């Protein structure tokens, strides 16, 4: 079976700063993987490379055996952080979902497309605010709309950048449950950047620990060792003594 993601010596720099260094990774299909790491560790950068938004400075990357430039955007669903969303944009929620189907802001959508969008919104319990303007939606509601925008195209790879940011714990648990369920039913490969260790442990199968370099990739059960966490969260130039005893027992 072709792997979902393969990277070889992947490097990305912002100016002189290395955001990602020599990332070598093979992620099989149909895995639900969380990406953890401190701020500025390259988590979002990695997702944006996979989404085709930015290009690596060097190295190779393949998604389902194809280069990012070649692969159809139908296969990849990217949910950015909602803080990047322009809430002032004049749009109602369902338009955002339909943009996921049309790959542009459609002047008109067919009834079939609208039915499909409504079906996904229903599944996400978001149908009641499908006609609301974006600036009247809460963080959790917006997050569901963004997710619906991706799920409606039934991608084979779902890239989620901190989907729980700005929403309360109940919403977060529901959202993670929905994503987990979707990955099982549709057999979608999922990569989710998160700061939430508990949800990473509860909902995902594998874990990537990233701090510009790949610290760990594998089963979640072996991820949270003190050694891995020290490497992920301690800066080599600082002599911080951090203990992760409680976290390793998550």
């Amino acid at each position, binding site marked *: 079976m072709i792997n979902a993601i393969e990277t070889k010596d992947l490097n990305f720099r912002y100016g002189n700063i290395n955001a990602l260094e020599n990332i070598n990774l093979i992620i099989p299909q149909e895995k639900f993987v969380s990406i953890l790491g401190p701020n500025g560790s390259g988590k979002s950068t990695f997702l*944006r490379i996979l*989404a*085709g*938004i930015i290009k690596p400075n060097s190295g190779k990357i393949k998604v389902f055996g194809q280069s990012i430039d070649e692969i159809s*955007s139908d296969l*990849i669903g*990217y949910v*950015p952080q909602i803080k*990047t*969303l*322009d809430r002032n*944009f*004049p*749009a*109602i929620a369902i*338009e955002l979902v339909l*943009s996921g189907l*049309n*790959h*542009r*802001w*459609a*002047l008109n959508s067919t009834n079939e497309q609208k039915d499909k969008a409504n079906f996904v919104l229903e599944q996400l319990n978001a149908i009641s605010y499908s006609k609301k*303007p974006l600036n009247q939606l809460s963080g959790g509601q917006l997050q569901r709309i963004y997710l619906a925008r991706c799920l409606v195209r039934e991608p084979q790879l779902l890239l989620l950048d901190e989907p729980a940011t700005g929403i309360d714990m109940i919403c977060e648990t529901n959202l993670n449950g929905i994503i987990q369920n979707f990955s099982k039913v549709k057999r979608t490969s999922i990569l989710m950047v998160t700061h939430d260790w508990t949800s990473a442990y509860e909902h995902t199968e594998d874990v990537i620990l990233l701090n510009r370099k790949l610290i760990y990739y594998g089963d979640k059960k072996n991820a949270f060792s003190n050694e891995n966490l020290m490497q992920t969260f301690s800066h080599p130039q600082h002599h911080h003594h951090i203990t992760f005893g409680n976290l390793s027992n998550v």
Partner: protein
Amino acid sequence: MFEIFILPFFYRALIIIILLGFTASYYGVFIVQRKMSFLGSGLAHSAFGGVALGILLSVQPLIIAIPFTLLFAIFISYFQEKSNLSSDTIIGIFFSIAVSLGIIFLSLKENYTTDAFTYLFGSLLSVQLIDVWTSIILTILTTFTFFKYWSRWTYATFDYELAIADKLPVRKDNYILNSLIAITVVVSIKIIGIILISAYIVIPGAIARLLSKTFRQMTILAIIIGVVSGIIGLLISILVDLPSGAVIVLFQSILMISVFIFKREK
């Protein structure tokens, strides 16, 4: 007074104001939503450099101003894409270069003042047949590009990165949009004037933004406001014998303030 309405220049001005009301307001919605209002002003001042060169060379200024402004639009787009500088800084720099060139070109020409003032403040009397034809061509171009580009420009306006992720050629699309805005600006100069162009392009979009729930509504409403306010402003300017550009923009501004107050009270 009413004999003015049967004179050919009135009909030329009326045709131009209807066509430009459509094109300028259409592009204005993208300028408003992308927070690039300064672009209109920057391109108008770039056009000033082109107009001045035309006057210096004793060539129809529009013929020089269109490629001149297009060149500046391309430079602005290029630097926006390639540098870390903010849009207003880049536009401000090119704005100054074009104005400096314009001043130098005009200073090299004797007896330039009348023509230059016409372009700065706009004048109905200066509208010629070539301006009508350019407006018609621009309107046709805008109508044709509408079906292909509206949805792409709108998507990139909403979220530039999502548009890239969906493999839209956003960079190329930006060049096309900025180039069409540049032509619109140049064609509008004669009737509106360099100084007021930016407001003329932006205000209908801003009014429509206050009244619209969706971007599609905003686009349609801006076009209607642009065309209707242009016609009314033009007629008022003729009746009270004041410069057309100033009256149109003032009328649009009053409309915007009224809508703003109405919306707040509601």
